[in-house]
């Protein structure tokens, strides 16, 4: 019997009635089908007995018998089962359900909730084990530390992999282009990246085009930013009181009784000016962001295009940054067996950087100094202190800086299914970045502005041709390419044994170049002063260039995953990395990992349990960090060797060797053990992960310092062990109450313990660090202590003279270096986040928070205070005076204080990172827009911190400024309003 064909039509939407264009509507029995259009609609010729199947990526498939219906309204439910979820891993993808490694995943849509320039910052508080130390300076990247700091001398940053391109950062990636961010944390997932895996890997996958009608999105936000926590300084009269008290104390304590009553050098009390220097160098910051993207395609070609523009005016005057990003991702289906795709991203950025030391100058500068005096001349403090007038520098009147960056990153990938189950993939990728840096200095103008006693004739003394202005132009270029070729084999035997294997070769080349030139006396005319040719053409020009040694890698990669009915899982991965960085004969290293998992819920006895998924997994492996300082015994030349001879003092070149090398220096090898538990229960509503890990850098590169008499510079050698061990826990709850109210709550916490466990060389130098530019240091590298540990004198209290009393820790009656002790590190012991999302009808609301506990912060700017520099109001009010003794704050003083616990504060903080409220405007079916959402976001609206400075979030070199507030950019509070549209 033959039935007549009917034409039926329908519409496919998600649960919230948002149309799903490009969904597949098929009649599987007859291999017919179509795709939904732009509005989610479709029409199809059917027989009454047909069954139509509606599928869409990430949604649960539905099958519906046609019967006699002619109109279908199909709501697809999002697939929350997580069983089908696929995770991007190195050189491939894997099903999350049978993954035997620790991978934190953050979806693009979750990142997009927070308006940030760099997606790494949005990771903060969202992924367990991933410590993000954010910076709010325009264009500045955040610092990411995955599972603790494992190296002192080596590179500390994770490896970033953008669509298969291995790179150093993701500053060039528009967060709106990101489909997902996966953080690989354990050896099982990292070993495939061999000697670059030890610091963890952040995998970035950018969005792909979806077939169906073209969908356009336009998103924008704009807002303003201000300093979140301010430090109140003393005013003019308080400053004068304090300074004079301090000078009096100098006279009383300098062993010269004749000056005890002197008032020489006292600052008069009636002052004309009372300048708030922080106000004078800051303004309200402004941010605008625009993003346009288009996605669409046919069965054979799917394209995604986006253009993003971000513009920021920093809170510090003349600190600006803007960035344009363009992206084109296209997938071609050339035949049934051949796919080709290219992902290309372009970044154009420019900035006018400002000197963050200005925050310290503003903190220190005397309030009695005016920005400009009544004659219009810049205020000068040369008679008081050696702090420059911050407004001169911030005002940019005598300098101009411009940095420009151009970066292209692209991957071209071919997948060829040679036979069924066996695919060959070839990918060629390139990345190149050009930087141009212009720095113009009106040296004479600055000289005259800084000190009223300076005159043009005293500028550079009798120099025949003083450099009144100076321009330095620097060009940099980095370039790298990769060629990856690998086979992927995936097959299930007897419906029980599944094998997934990858095998291949990759090669890579990196190179960088620098060229810099300087000329004096370029004109002041702003149109001319970035042009070197307008400057003096004489031998005072300084040119320098550097061409890096080509850095090449050649590697074999292999991975096998086996599972028995999705229940018993085994995995192994391997990479043999050859790196040109190392001595010939010692270039190849083998890195591997083995892992196993047991999906308990696949067992029969778990059939009726509350668990949907319960998985145990364990992994162990060996990873490397090739980014270590290499011992090239370079000859010392240049300014370290020059010497002038003859009446004309012509420089003659010098050359010498000032060091020695360890020829066997190589990568750092880290062993990592991980034990994990993953669970989903209560009908997929509650899910979580618990991980224990121990990472041991078995041959940490540390500095060796021979006795001075040998005369060699310090050098590096593999002499230590650094351990990180910790626990990570993440829990997510997702549910709805009725049809209209959906919510989710997430919580994660990470604990990490870091320390140097062993050192094997007697000349290991307990490297000092954290110098605060006044002869004082604050940190020391030592066995048994975490990296970046503060090493200080301990304050016992204040004596009856108002002076610090230091603890005599070794009880020898003398306070000296041997009374210092360790007081913790800038690295937190605990950190985590609590996140909440609510959707009620058209309204959405989200809160994201971040907490950081157990780290220490050194108040460097306060400790650096010197004679006649300003003090904090709190310090002024609580200081020891004869009439009002204090047990906590010393009396006014001018000496350089010893580095002590007085300046060390708790870095603990809890911050609301983000509160967003949005409203999606209901659209009529035939309106121009598909969706329109408006929202308002408050970023960092509240912080609860113990630290009395601007920001306890202070990243940097563990032996440098990390955890020390000195020349640091403050944390900002921002308010944005935004719009998301799709049409």
């Amino acid at each position, binding site marked *: 019997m033959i039935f007549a064909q009917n034409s039926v039509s329908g519409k496919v939407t998600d649960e919230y009635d948002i149309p799903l264009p490009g969904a597949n509507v098929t009649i599987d029995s007859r291999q017919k089908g179509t795709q939904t259009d732009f509005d989610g609609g479709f029409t199809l010729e059917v027989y009454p007995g047909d069954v139509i199947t509606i599928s869409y990526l990430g949604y649960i498939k539905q099958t519906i018998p046609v019967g006699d219906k002619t109109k279908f309204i199909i709501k697809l439910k999002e697939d929350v089962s997580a069983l089908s979820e696929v995770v991007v891993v190195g050189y491939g993808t894997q099903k999350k359900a049978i993954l035997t490694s620790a991978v934190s995943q953050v979806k693009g849509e979750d990142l997009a909730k927070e308006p940030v320039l760099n997606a790494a910052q949005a990771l903060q508080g969202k992924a367990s084990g991933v410590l993000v130390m954010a910076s709010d300076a325009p264009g500045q990247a955040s610092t990411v530390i995955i599972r603790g700091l494992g190296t002192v001398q080596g590179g500390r940053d994770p490896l970033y992999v953008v669509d298969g391109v291995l790179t150093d950062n993701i500053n060039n990636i528009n967060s709106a282009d990101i489909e997902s961010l996966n953080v690989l944390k354990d050896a099982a997932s990292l070993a495939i990246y061999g000697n670059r895996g030890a610091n963890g890997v952040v995998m970035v996958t950018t969005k792909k085009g979806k077939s169906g009608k073209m969908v356009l999105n336009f998103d924008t936000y704009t807002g303003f930013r201000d300093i979140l926590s301010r430090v109140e300084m003393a005013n003019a009269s308080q400053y004068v009181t304090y300074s004079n008290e*301090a000078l009096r104390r100098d*006279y009383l*304590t300098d*062993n010269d009784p004749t000056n005890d009553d002197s008032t020489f050098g006292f600052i008069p009390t009636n002052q004309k000016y009372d300048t708030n220097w922080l106000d004078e160098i800051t303004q309200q910051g402004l941010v605008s962001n625009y993003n346009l993207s288009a996605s669409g395609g046919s069965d054979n070609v799917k394209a995604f295009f986006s253009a993003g523009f971000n513009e920021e005016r920093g809170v510090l005057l003349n600190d600006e940054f803007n960035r344009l990003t363009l992206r084109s991702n296209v997938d071609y289906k050339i*035949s049934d*067996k*051949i796919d080709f795709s290219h992902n290309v991203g372009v970044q154009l950025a420019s900035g006018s950087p400002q000197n963050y030391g200005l925050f310290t100058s503003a903190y220190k500068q005397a309030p009695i100094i005016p920005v400009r005096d009544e004659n219009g001349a810049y205020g000068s403090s*040369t008679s008081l202190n050696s702090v420059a007038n911050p407004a001169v520098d911030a005002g940019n009147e005598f300098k101009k800086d411009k940095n420009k960056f151009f970066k292209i990153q692209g991957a071209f990938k*071919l997948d*060829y299914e040679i036979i069924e189950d066996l695919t*060959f993939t*070839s990918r060629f990728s390139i990345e190149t970045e050009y930087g141009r840096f212009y720095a113009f200095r009106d040296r004479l103008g600055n000289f005259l502005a800084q000190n009223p*006693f300076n005159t043009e004739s005293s500028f550079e*003394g*009798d*120099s025949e041709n003083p450099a009144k202005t100076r321009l330095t132009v620097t060009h940099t270029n980095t370039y790298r390419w990769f*060629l990856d070729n690998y086979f992927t084999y995936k097959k299930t035997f007897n419906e029980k044994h599944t094998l997934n294997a990858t095998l291949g*070769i990759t*090669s890579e080349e990196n190179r960088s170049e620098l060229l810099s030139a300087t000329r*004096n006396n370029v004109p002041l005319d702003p149109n001319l002063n970035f042009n070197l040719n307008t400057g003096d053409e004489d031998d005072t020009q*300084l040119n320098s260039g550097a*061409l890096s040694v080509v*850095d*090449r*890698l*050649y590697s074999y990669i292999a991975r096998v995953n086996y599972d028995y009915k999705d229940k018993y899982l085994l995995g192994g991965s391997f990479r043999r990395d050859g*790196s*040109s960085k190392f001595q010939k004969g010692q270039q190849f290293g083998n890195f591997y990992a083995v892992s196993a998992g047991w999906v308990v819920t696949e067992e029969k006895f778990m059939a009726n349990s509350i668990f949907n998924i319960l998985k145990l997994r364990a992994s162990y492996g060996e990873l490397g960090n090739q980014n270590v300082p290499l011992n090239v*015994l*370079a*000859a010392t*030349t240049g300014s*370290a*060797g*020059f*010497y*002038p*001879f*003859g*009446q004309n*003092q012509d420089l*003659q070149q*010098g*050359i*010498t*060797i*000032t060091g*020695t090398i360890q020829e066997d220096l190589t990568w750092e090898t880290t062993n990592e053990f991980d034990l994990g538990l993953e669970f989903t229960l209560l009908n997929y509503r509650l899910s979580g992960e618990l991980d224990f890990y121990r990472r041991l850098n078995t041959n940490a590169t540390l500095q060796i310092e*021979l*006795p*001075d*008499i*040998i*005369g*060699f510079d310090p050098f590096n050698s593999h002499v230590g062990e650094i351990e990180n061990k910790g626990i990570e826990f993440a829990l997510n709850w997702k549910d709805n109450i009725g049809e209209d109210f959906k919510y989710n709550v997430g919580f994660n916490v990470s604990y990490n313990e870091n320390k140097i466990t062993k050192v094997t060389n*007697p*000349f290991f130098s307990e490297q000092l660090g954290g110098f605060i530019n006044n002869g004082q240091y604050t940190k020391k590298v030592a066995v048994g202590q975490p990296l970046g540990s503060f090493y200080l004198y301990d304050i016992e209290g204040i004596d009856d003279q108002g002076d610090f009393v230091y603890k005599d820790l070794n009880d020898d009656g003398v306070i000296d270096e041997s009374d210092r002790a360790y007081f913790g590190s800038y690295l937190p012991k605990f950190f985590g986040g609590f996140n909440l999302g609510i959707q009620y009808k058209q309204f959405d609301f989200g809160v994201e928070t971040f907490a950081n506990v157990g780290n220490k912060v050194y108040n460097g700017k306060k400790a650096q205070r*010197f*004679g006649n520099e300003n003090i904090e109001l709190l310090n002024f009010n609580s200081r020891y005076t004869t009439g009002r003794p204090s047990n906590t704050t010393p009396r006014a003083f001018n*000496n350089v204080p010893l580095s002590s616990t007085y300046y060390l504060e708790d870095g603990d903080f809890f911050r609301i990172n983000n509160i967003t409220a949005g409203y999606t405007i209901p659209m009529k079916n035939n309106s121009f827009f598909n969706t329109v959402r408006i929202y308002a976001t408050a970023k960092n609206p509240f912080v609860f911190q113990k630290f009395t400075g601007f920001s306890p979030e202070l990243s940097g070199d563990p032996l440098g400024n990390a955890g020390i507030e000195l020349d640091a950019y403050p944390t900002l509070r921002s308010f944005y309003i935004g719009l998301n549209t799709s049409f």
Partner: protein
Amino acid sequence: MKTILNRIKKISLVTVLSLLGLQSCSENFIDVDSNQETEDALTPDSAPELVNAIYNSFLSWEMSSFGWTGLTSIASDDADKGSIPSDTGADKDLLDALTITPTLLSAAEVWRGHYDGIQRANQAISRIPKFEMDANLQTRLLGEARFLRGLMYFRLVQTFGGVPLISEVTSVEDINEDILSRKTKEACYLFIEEDLLFAIDALPLKSEYPAAQLGRATKGAAQTLLAKVSMYQSKWDDVLALTEAVMQSNEYGLTPNYEDIWKEISENNIESIFEIQARGNEPAAGVDKYSTIQGARGEGGWGWGFNTPSEDLEKAYSPNDQRKDATIMFAGETLFDGRVIDINAPNPRYNQKAYSSILTESEQTGKNIRILRYAEVLLMNAEAKSILGGDVATPLNAVRLRAGLTAATDLSTLAIWEERRLELAFEHDRYFDLVRQGRASEVLNSKGIPFVQGKHEVFPIPQEQIDISGGALVQNPNY
């Protein structure tokens, strides 16, 4: 369509195979040659450069600046710490009061700076003899290197007494207790004398150098330094013979006007026997902050105001002595170049010998630092004669008359010592001179400086270096 697909298939297969083929046999892909200058860059052509690098180490902060000034001047009765009370200059207050301990930063800097320079000298001395090159140049370069090494060891012995003697480039494996331990002062002097005797034979006279090489070590410099080294050992016959040789070489004389000696115009002039060459103009190669640390502080000033001439020194000059005003810049004074020292400067006196008239504010001092000059030869000659007998008056009076004084009436050794103080003030000699003369405690104690006999004749060995040596390095007595 089918044929196209087939062709694509074939092309793809070929591509796959060729890509893999190309890539798989290329492990030598990672054999990359370095493009950095390494040890291989040290060819015979670079022999002069190896020696230039030793001279360069005299421009360093640690060798020549703050610490060295602190030990040699501030610790003595010629100078006070200076600057403002709250600015201690790390440890200059301790040096001024002579309350020093083994953690003294200045001593650590001087120790390190000198051994860095000695390492550079050892590099040259061990490599140059192996080069096939012009024999005359080879000899001269070795002479320069050994002169400089001798000078550095002499300064170390003056400062610390006997020190470890590192005579060649030492590899990590060679480090042992013997290398790390101190040798006797006598052994050190013997080593220094060998270097300087070699240099005397190897080096040309000052006038034999081409103009463009002015500033290199000369035979005269080596003779003068050896005379000084001999004087420290009371080998008066040698002092006399060597100073006579310099005086009879007709290479040197006195600058007519004392104040001119430290002006830029007088660099390498007739009185100059050896000086650190310094260039302030860009590209600069000057002595790191030598003038800055000693420059006038405060309003209109250009420096940190350390190492200020003491009132005691000021009073030591007789009224007609031109050297007082040439040595001391007074607050309120107008200098020879028109610069005015602010009347309200925090210190009443500053060291004029460190003043750089050109590029005054440059942190790289462009003025040469005078190390050995002819007046000192005359004074050593006079001192030797005062002990051995001979014509003391002629050399002594040459120095006095130039200073605007009359001929000496007192020709005693003590009078020569006083003349040395006034002539050579701030030339990094006073403290060592007092110790050498055996009257340091007497002189310094009388001026309230708590010099302890049996202790302060030498400065403490840096504690950190004793620790790192595992005890092989032994501290000086009573520290």
